[in-house]
């Protein structure tokens, strides 16, 4: 089946698989700077896929989305995070999950689960990108898994952003993108979110001397 598709459509599928791989790489990575780099790569891959989908479907406003994605997710936010990490002086800390291999195995299970869930949806669609719905769902869930498995705030922000990547990817794959207004709004939200996170890092660190979110338990009113 794959052989009958034109080469650029094959490329869309390959890129989708690579986006999924970057999600796994984020899960496994325990250094914060490479993590940000992988995140940037993920943004770039998503953007290239969007551009290819735009070419495939002839919807030119998707090009704009692609450019925006590159600007925001492949360049600006990674740059912002990078600067933050440097200024917070945490670029050498370990930010990994406790059992990376276990987390990866759970991740693989999630992908299979997404495939199972997405199968009925895929039957409805006839476009090339229908198969990527499962992948984009998996990227969302893997982002959530990253949020759960990491204790450090920076890693969690990266997880959150990658989750957002998954949502965007799903929109592109399933319906060839959201209306431009919505997309602009979401992009703006993400941008503001990233900035606010940046401010919060300093706040959190000032109040609890750490960026370990498990320490936030101490804010609970219950005595331990």
């Amino acid at each position, binding site marked *: *089946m*794959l*052989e009958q598709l034109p*080469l650029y459509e*094959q*490329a869309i*599928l*390959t890129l*989708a*698989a*690579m986006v*999924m*791989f970057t999600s*796994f790489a984020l899960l*496994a990575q325990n250094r914060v700077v490479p993590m940000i780099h992988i995140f940037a790569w993920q943004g770039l891959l998503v953007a290239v896929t969007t551009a290819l989908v735009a070419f495939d479907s002839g919807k030119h406003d998707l090009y704009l989305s692609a450019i925006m994605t590159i600007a925001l997710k492949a360049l600006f936010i990674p740059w912002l995070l990078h600067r933050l990490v440097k200024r917070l002086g945490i670029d050498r800390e370990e930010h990994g999950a406790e059992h*990376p*291999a276990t987390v*990866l195995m759970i991740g*693989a299970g999630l*992908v*299979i689960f997404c*495939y199972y869930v997405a*199968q009925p949806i*895929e039957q409805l669609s006839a476009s090339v990108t229908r*198969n*990527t719905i*499962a*992948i984009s769902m998996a990227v969302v869930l893997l982002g959530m898994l990253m949020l759960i498995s990491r204790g450090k705030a920076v890693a969690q922000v990266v997880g959150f952003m990658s989750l957002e990547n998954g949502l965007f990817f799903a929109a592109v794959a399933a319906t060839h993108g959201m209306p431009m207004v919505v997309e602009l709004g979401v992009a703006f939200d993400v941008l503001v979110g990233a900035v606010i996170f940046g401010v919060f890092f300093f706040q959190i660190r000032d109040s609890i001397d750490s960026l370990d979110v498990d320490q936030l338990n101490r804010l609970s009113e219950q005595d331990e």
Partner: protein
Amino acid sequence: MNDWLLALIEMALFVALAPLFSAWVKRVKCWLQNRRAPSLLQPYRDLRRLFAKQVVLSHNASPVFRATPYIIAGATLLAAAVVPFISVNLPTAAIADVIVLAGFFALARFFQALAGMDVGTAFGGMGSSREMTISALAEPAMLMAVFTLAMVAHSTNLSTVIDYLLAQGLVLRPSLLFALLSLLLVGIAETGRIPVDNPATHLELTMIHEAMILEYSGRHLALIEWAVQLKLLIYGVLIVNIFFPWGIATHNSLHALAVAAGVVFFKLMVLGVLLAVGETVLAKMRLFRVPAFLVLALTLALIGLLSHIILEVG
């Protein structure tokens, strides 16, 4: 009958060229590191010298120790016999599929590790323990990549797989991309190259393969060295011929074979350059980082498999 003769010649070519490939990798590495490279014939001279040298056996060595070099070299040679090198129509390729190929390497490794423990030094045991640990992790990654390949081509026979991929033309498959990456990592781990093992070191903290063969000398050592070079070449040929099969001879005319030989040479040279670049750029890993490296290989293979199922079939 002609086919069998061809298979025999290909096997001989494999054996004859194995040291050359290692020498080529070494040469490129030297260039990259601003060193003067030894001659491309140096490995052959080393082998000849080793064959001429007297064998010194430990008082403690058992028959297992003496038999091991022959078994390793034999199993590796058999592995070379079933891998299509220049021509895809190899009668010997049907004898063993790619899982059996993995079995041959496992057999060689089993005896290698036993020989490491035979003399009763701490080094040998250390090398064996590390080798078996690493191979235990590399094996599932390798088989997972192989499964992906087998599911794409509906076969585990190397000839059939290559035939299928050739017939299909240029298709961009995410599954094969990831299988390729995974097999590259596994190949590096299995052939004991940087960053998993350093074939040039004899530092007890880091050595794996060298620790096992520390007690070997003379022709025994020559056989083992040769088998190691052969194994590297087999992995190289596997990777270039499966993932970039273009140019391999599909029929056994003299002209096609000559062209195929040239193309394979070229592909191997490129691969050798890549390997050398990798070995120059990367540093040897700590032993307990190797599992992470192999888990990466496993994840790649797994993603390859999943993307085949999700993206290519469904």
